[in-house]
């Protein structure tokens, strides 16, 4: 009972606050007669969403699902796999890690056009941009996680004469999970940004980034805001999904235990 009301409060507060902001926004726009080209009222954005549901859906599938989520999954797997390889082979630590560092420093506005040239206008190039953006935070966090076991835990494995693979799967990867999920949360945010921005550098006639850039040119500001709303909702939902899986996987970690 007490837990239920605590959960209700956790949702009710931000929800109530959000609604208050929307109401204030609506009142301000009307009161000061702000032109829709500068800032449309929430009701106008709502109307645009209702009017263009089909377009928004097509854009969402193109950018969020095909570009961002595919890229996120591939980049996350690649990052974790590279971390395991670097951790195992010292020559990779000295060779690959600096290269990964260098790639991480490349600006997205430079990478995106090149990926479009390599992989074409469709979502493949956007997923490639996302892979590049997501790879490094996943790599660094997984490496930190793999180093997070203490000497006694590793000594214990040694008294069992455990192999490298056994130590990895039974000790170091489980211990690394809180770190891997930290990386995944960062990566989730980056993935959506990357997929949207990459469309500015060439895309088919659909996608959230494509829509935002063309509607700005046509002064369809309500549609721009509609896409922004969809992307914000998607980002929040994706983040919540990762946090939910995290709670299931790292239930044992002190930061998760208190909430059980």
């Amino acid at each position: 009972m007490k837990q239920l009301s605590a959960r209700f409060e956790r949702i009710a507060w931000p929800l109530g606050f959000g609604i208050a902001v929307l109401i204030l926004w609506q009142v301000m726009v009307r009161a000061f007669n702000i032109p829709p080209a500068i800032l449309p009222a929430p009701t106008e954005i709502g109307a645009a969403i209702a009017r263009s549901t089909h377009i928004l859906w097509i854009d969402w599938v193109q950018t969020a699902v095909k570009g961002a989520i595919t890229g996120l999954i591939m980049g996350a797997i690649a990052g974790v796999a590279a971390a395991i390889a670097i951790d195992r082979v010292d020559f990779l630590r000295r060779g690959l890690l600096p290269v990964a560092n260098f790639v991480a420093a490349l600006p997205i506005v430079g990478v995106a056009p090149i990926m479009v040239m390599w992989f074409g206008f469709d979502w493949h190039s956007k997923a490639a941009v996302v892979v590049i953006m997501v790879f490094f935070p996943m790599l660094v966090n997984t490496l930190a996680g793999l180093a997070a076991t203490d000497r006694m835990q590793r000594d214990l494995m040694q008294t069992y004469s455990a192999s490298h693979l056994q130590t990895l799967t039974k000790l170091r990867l489980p211990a690394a999970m809180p770190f891997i999920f930290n990386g995944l949360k960062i990566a989730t945010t980056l993935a959506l940004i990357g997929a949207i921005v990459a469309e500015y550098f060439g895309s088919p006639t659909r996608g959230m980034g494509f829509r935002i850039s063309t509607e700005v040119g046509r002064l369809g500001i309500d549609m721009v805001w509609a896409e922004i709303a969809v992307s914000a909702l998607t980002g929040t939902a994706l983040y919540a999904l990762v946090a939910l899986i995290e709670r299931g996987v790292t239930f044992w970690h002190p930061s998760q235990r208190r909430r059980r």
Partner: protein
Amino acid sequence: MTKKPVISARDLDLTFETNDGPIHALKGVSLDIEKGDFVSFIGPSGCGKTTFLRVIAGLEQATGGDVSVNGMTPEEARKSRAYGYVFQAAGLYPWRTIEGNIRLPLEIMGFARADMPRRIERVLKLVDLEGFGRKYPWQLSGGMQQRASIARALAFDADILLMDEPFGALDEIVRDHLNEQLLALWAKTEKTIGFVTHSIPEAVYLSTKIVVMSPRPGRITDVIESPLPRERPLDIRDTPEFLEVAHRVREGLRAGHAYDD
């Protein structure tokens, strides 16, 4: 029956090379431990108790001398599952239940799946933790966690149990209780036990043989064969025999210090 040492150390030397120069952790250490012995290592901190135990377990390489376990090198003995090691902290994996933690060495050593529940059941009973198998370590008290870690070390039937200050972090009352249980367990399983402690009463109460060590360089200054019977109720600690052994240990520790100054 002729007794053959299970663990035999001859003139062990171990020097750690550190940035501040070499540290003589062990110097000229020789000791025989027979089957079924309960041997305590006692001495001030830094005298090489942990290091000695780690050398026996093959976790550390001696820089001189010989050590054999069951007639093998420590590494070979380890691969033949000769010993279970209990650390100062329980070190249970928090993502595994108590059962899961005890299953860990069984999984690694390739025991048959079908065999595992029976083994887990048995060792949980030995350490008096029946019914707690499904709990997570962080749901248990420190004393219970340490007992679970002993169960983990017992699960694969090693003949030798090496314990490095296993009860050091626990309060006196819990420690008394666990000491009693450990003796009962030792009587039941007839294992050979190497036990590091810095408590004189604990060493005297538990051991058939007490090894007194002193630091810089770490060495053995006295080996005391206990005249106490194997069966030991807690109040044996008030008998004159007990106090006499405790006195000799204290003398040994003091002598080690005098040597040091």
